[in-house]
């Protein structure tokens, strides 16, 4: 399932900056080493601080890494070392969590496998007082068996942004159904501009929203496959129709999470997250509009993928209590840092209702529209949906979208894998 994926590219300047940053970090940790040692002669027990390691994936927006370091430095009860991870964060995190050498505190997306293999600890005690200040979906996505395992850091709605001027010029209204979307994409295609960019994979990221827009879901309430049936098959078929319409951009140097394609005028519409709004506004000004993934048909309902990142405490940490305390400090108590993280780099919705209500940058223009769409049509991840199920679903989408395979047959194949996983997890 696509989350907020970082820009994997590394420019020479980035590299220099990063290696410089590394040197600075080394100097910083060395300096800390000097300060944090034993208490001065005759001192009591106090004064020794524990060391915590906090892992982030590489956010694409400039300034995020400095911000993360700033927060860590401002924390006085422990020495927090930030590890900023370019490239395949998921794989690095997975191997880090196998041993106690990994992170104490890390960001990720939650799934039941993390609880089953005892990777994370429950955080009910630190969130209890402010539980009501979080949206129900953001709590549910981090809850298994009534226990909350993660504190939502940011919400990243994924939607379709479009160039108002291009749609106006072609006399097209913002699409309201999937058929409208396909027709609009075709109509907006010229020899220089493609109608839409949905990712170089041909639109796998829209698989979930397409499913939701047909009335389906990944899993039903009682944990059975929810992506079966004729309507789901129809939704996947529509994604193939869009792919085969020759109106989508493929093989772009950057992928769907980066606004370069729409900014450079390669496309009129792009499937992307709200994080990119500042980047798009810088280039396109007010020439951006937003729609949710449109409903499949009259019976369907528009859909928004309400993704994001969540903070966890590793169960293998030697300092679980100190790590929990730090997470509470940064992601529950320090609202000015949460606001900074959500609004000053890319745009994200702060998960705290009280904070979101105050977020003035999200109260006008296309950002406000996106927030509203997320409220009305947002779907969060189901924690029972494991990465293995996700891979089976992605294979289903690739076969349907790119190869034009029969959706019903592909659904049957994925259903087999998902059922095997479900019986492993729930017996």
């Amino acid at each position, binding site marked *: 399932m696509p989350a907020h994926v970082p820009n994997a590219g590394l420019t020479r300047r980035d590299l220099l900056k990063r290696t410089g940053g590394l040197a600075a970090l080394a100097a910083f940790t060395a300096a800390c080493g000097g300060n944090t040692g034993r208490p001065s002669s005759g001192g009591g027990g106090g004064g020794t601080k524990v060391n915590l390691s906090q892992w982030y994936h590489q956010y694409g927006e400039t300034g995020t890494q400095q911000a993360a370091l700033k927060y860590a430095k401002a924390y006085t009860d422990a020495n927090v070392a930030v590890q900023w991870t370019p490239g*395949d964060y998921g794989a690095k995190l997975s191997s880090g969590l196998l041993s106690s050498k990994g992170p104490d505190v890390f960001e990720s997306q939650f799934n039941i496998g993390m609880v*089953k293999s005892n990777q994370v600890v429950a955080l009910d005690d630190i969130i209890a007082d402010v539980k009501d200040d979080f949206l129900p979906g953001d709590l549910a996505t981090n809850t298994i068996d009534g226990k909350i395992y993660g504190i939502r850091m940011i919400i990243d709605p994924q939607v379709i942004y479009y160039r108002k001027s291009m749609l106006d010029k072609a006399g097209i209204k913002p699409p309201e159904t999937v058929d409208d979307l396909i027709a609009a994409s075709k109509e907006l295609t010229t020899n220089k501009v493609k109608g839409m960019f949905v990712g170089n*994979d041909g639109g796998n990221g829209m698989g979930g929203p397409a499913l939701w827009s047909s009335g389906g879901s990944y899993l039903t309430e009682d944990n059975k496959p929810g992506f079966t049936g004729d309507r789901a098959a129809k939704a996947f078929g529509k994604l193939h129709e869009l792919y085969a319409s020759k109106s989508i951009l493929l093989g772009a140097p950057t992928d769907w999470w980066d606004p370069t394609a729409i900014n450079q005028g390669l496309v009129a519409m792009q499937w992307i997250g709200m994080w990119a709004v500042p980047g798009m506004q810088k280039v396109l000004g007010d020439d951006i509009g937003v729609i949710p993934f449109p409903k499949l048909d009259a019976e369907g309902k528009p859909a928004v993928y309400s993704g994001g990142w969540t903070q966890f405490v590793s169960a293998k940490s030697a300092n679980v209590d100190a790590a929990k305390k730090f997470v509470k400090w940064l992601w529950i108590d320090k609202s000015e840092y949460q606001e900074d993280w959500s609004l000053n780099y890319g745009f994200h919705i702060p998960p705290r209702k009280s904070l979101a209500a105050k977020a003035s940058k999200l109260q006008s223009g296309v950002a406000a529209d996106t927030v509203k769409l997320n409220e009305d049509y947002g779907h969060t991840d189901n924690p029972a949906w494991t990465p293995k199920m996700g891979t089976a679903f992605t294979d289903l989408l690739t076969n349907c979208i790119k190869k034009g395979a029969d959706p019903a047959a592909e659904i049957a194949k994925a259903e087999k894998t998902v059922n095997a996983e479900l019986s492993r997890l729930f017996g």
Partner: protein
Amino acid sequence: MSAPAKTSAVPATAGERRGSRRRKGIAGNALWFWIFVGPFVIGLLIFSYLPIIWSLVLSFFEAYNTATPSKFVGLHNYVDMLTDHNFLSSLGTFTIFAVFIVPLTFVLALALALLVNQVKIARAFFRSVFFLPTACSYVVASLIWKLSIFNGVRFGLANTVLGWFGIENIAWLSTVDPPWYWIPLVTVRLWLQLGFYMILFIAGLQRISPTLYEAAYVDGAKPGWQVFRYITLPQLRATSVAVLILNLIAAYQAFDEFYNLVGNVNYARPPLVYLYGISLGSIQDLGHGSAGALILAVIIMLVTLLQNRIFGFGKAGD
């Protein structure tokens, strides 16, 4: 009497001395042997054999998100992998890749070697020029192929060239019908590895005794195809077999260019990318991943042995 006794005594002591020196020499040699070889043997044990043994252990356990599993499942993981259509199709993907890459590399590397070997001027230059890409990392080359040569937009190199002839842009890496993605995948590997196999062939060519050619000419063989077919090619047998085996194993181990060019997609996923996705990606299913890796290792061993049978690599006289 004393004189001969003396003379006989001298060689005896010399012999003794020589003998003791030899003994010391052997001990010294053994010491140096271990100083040079030891670190590599230790490295091999720790970084190769231990992981292989550990993955053998893991392959009999249910091991999600852990390298120290507790639930023994016997051959269950092996059965799953052998009936997993994705794993089987990844072997199919590899087969298609090998069908392209092995003969192409063989023929082109041999042709290059023959040409470079005949060049009379600037030999070192031509050899280095063709060998140089071998020094380039697969990841770097893949990124160049993906971002500048074979990107799908109008300013990609390949599309610019096609544009001169009025041909529409092609999304090289995203199109499955026709499967254009094979062109970047095969060309990047060709570019990277041709030089290496060319050097192997050049070494083989230089081992062929010139007297064979002279004899052939005396017997009336025509330079060109006839000499190549009856002298050069048979004399290159050992090199050819080595090139084929190394090439096939390298193809089985294909990972970097697939991972970087097309990612973990089910239509172009060789076995290693699939196994990486299962065991080291977000799924972290080390049990199934290990079982798959061992199945793959057995297949590679069987194919190599079979090739040996057919071509007779390492026979006396080769």
